[in-house]
């Protein structure tokens, strides 16, 4: 060890220090982001009372800062997206991983990657121009800019994440499980349904969580297609009405507020809430992923 140390020249020491610093930067950045969100959020609680904050009316111009409709709006759109995306994503993952012949897999995977690559603002534009009028005409409602429209597009955007993580989960099930099932006389479908899926359930759950984590943070698409009306979504009927999410509120209003105003700080509080939600979702997913380290790489790409 001593010998190697003397062989190492001084510039290598500098480089290795730099590399170590880069390695630690990820932790430093998460902490820094968290601290800055807190720093800018705290004054909100001094300027706005808790009863105003946890109220049902968001109308900042007249100092109504009730965040409940925004939180419920985000939850509604996200849950709607999850309900649509899980079966679609899981079926696609099963197709890619278990059913498709090699050429089908080679054909499908790039398509899913292309979907992941389309900028959210382009999807939002497509949603405004094509999907929203379609929904308005089909359901015969006054506007196509609804929670449903947002949920459908978000489901689509969550698909690449869900498909790729779920496929990894299916892939991680040992081949011997399948062979044993087939040897016992099960059909390929019975093997998938009764053996592979149950064995991969943790991974599939992770896929769903990461998909939801992505969906709740989506901003541009949601802002462009959900109509942005801050009202309490209290019934299923609200799916066919405009809704306003936390992300869209920040994106739409932060550009126009005065720095240091109550509105400014409340928007940071909304951002902090989003940060905490995604932090918890991703931390939970990360802990599951650590058990199957192999998957960790794919989760991020």
């Amino acid at each position: 060890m001593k010998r190697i140390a003397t062989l190492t020249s001084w510039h290598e020491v500098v480089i290795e220090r730099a590399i170590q610093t880069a390695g630690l930067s990820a932790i430093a950045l998460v902490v820094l982001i968290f601290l800055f969100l807190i720093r800018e959020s705290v004054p909100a609680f001094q300027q706005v009372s808790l009863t105003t904050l946890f109220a049902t009316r968001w109308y900042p111009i007249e100092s109504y800062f009730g965040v409940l409709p925004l939180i419920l709006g985000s939850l509604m759109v996200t849950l709607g997206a999850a309900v649509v995306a899980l079966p679609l994503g899981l079926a696609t993952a099963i197709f890619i991983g278990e059913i498709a012949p090699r050429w089908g897999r080679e054909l499908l995977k790039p398509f899913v990657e292309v979907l992941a690559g389309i900028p959210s603002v382009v999807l939002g534009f497509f949603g405004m121009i094509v999907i929203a009028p379609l929904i308005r005409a089909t359901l015969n409602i006054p506007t196509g800019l609804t929670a449903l429209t947002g949920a459908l597009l978000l489901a689509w955007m969550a698909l690449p994440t869900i498909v790729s993580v779920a496929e990894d989960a299916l892939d991680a099930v040992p081949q011997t499980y399948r062979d044993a099932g087939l040897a016992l006389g099960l059909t390929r479908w019975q093997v998938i349904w009764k053996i592979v899926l149950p064995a991969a359930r943790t991974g599939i759950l992770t896929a769903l969580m990461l998909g939801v984590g992505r969906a709740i943070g989506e901003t541009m698409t949601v802002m462009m297609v959900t109509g942005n009306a801050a009202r309490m979504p209290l019934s299923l009927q609200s799916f066919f009405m405009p809704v306003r999410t936390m992300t869209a509120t920040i994106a739409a209003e932060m550009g126009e507020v005065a720095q240091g105003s109550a509105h400014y700080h409340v928007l940071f509080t909304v951002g902090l809430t989003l940060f905490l939600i995604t932090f918890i979702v991703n931390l939970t997913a990360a802990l599951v992923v650590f058990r199957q380290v192999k998957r960790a790489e794919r989760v991020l790409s």
Partner: protein
Amino acid sequence: MKLSRQLQQQLAFGVITLIAALVVLPILLIVVYIAVQGAGAINWEFLTGFPHDGMKEGGIFPALVGTLWLTLGTALVAVPIGVGAAIYLSEYAGDTWLTRAIRVAIINLAGIPSVVYGLFGLGLFVLFLRFGTSILAGSLTLGIMTLPVIISTAEEALRAVPQSFRIVSISLGGSRWQTIWRVVLPQALPGIITGVILGLERAAGETAPILFTVAAFFLPRLPHSLFDQTMALPYHLFVISTQVPGMPVRIQFGTALVLMAFVLSMNLTASLIRRRYRRQRFW
């Protein structure tokens, strides 16, 4: 009994194949639809002209240039830190609590909503460090957002280099850094480049992080310095499709097409590099 099981299987496979097709077809539809609708707007003047008449006429040149600058800026921020972190994780760090914490942090960075990055960039770079709404602030924000993608793909590429390469280099008297610089990095380079392009692709298409950190609604000139605002393609598309009443659809589709083509061509480049490198690899 046997027949019904077979039928069951055929039915299930049929449904799954149908769903997979239903997932893929709309992707094709979106890309083709925007390409067809947008193609009419694309000409030399559209790509190299400035917008005028309240953006209802003219081209997208300043937005295109702005996006190029921002992509370059993002690369300058994210590549050294990202590749450095990947080298640390793959070549230096063992499996300790610290590296686990780093991995958790990376996963969390990847999950933070883009608009929250925008808030962070506004708070730290624009206001606290007084960079103002500028290319510098925007590039730093986008760079941090891109880090997790670059770190994870670069680490994967580094780990794929066989251990025997390192052992041979060390046994020939190479130091740890010489081994990394002369042996491991060159072998992992195509994989790293692929990851970098994929990360930059995402950054180039993002709108939310640049909303409050750099993007200008309308700026009829090119940016002069790092501390200048700039227009950018994604934000420009957002502006002309939601904020400008009576905007001609032709220009909207044209802008969407240019943005999509820009981003997807990066995606294509990345896959081509990856494919080529897989074929050439001799280990």
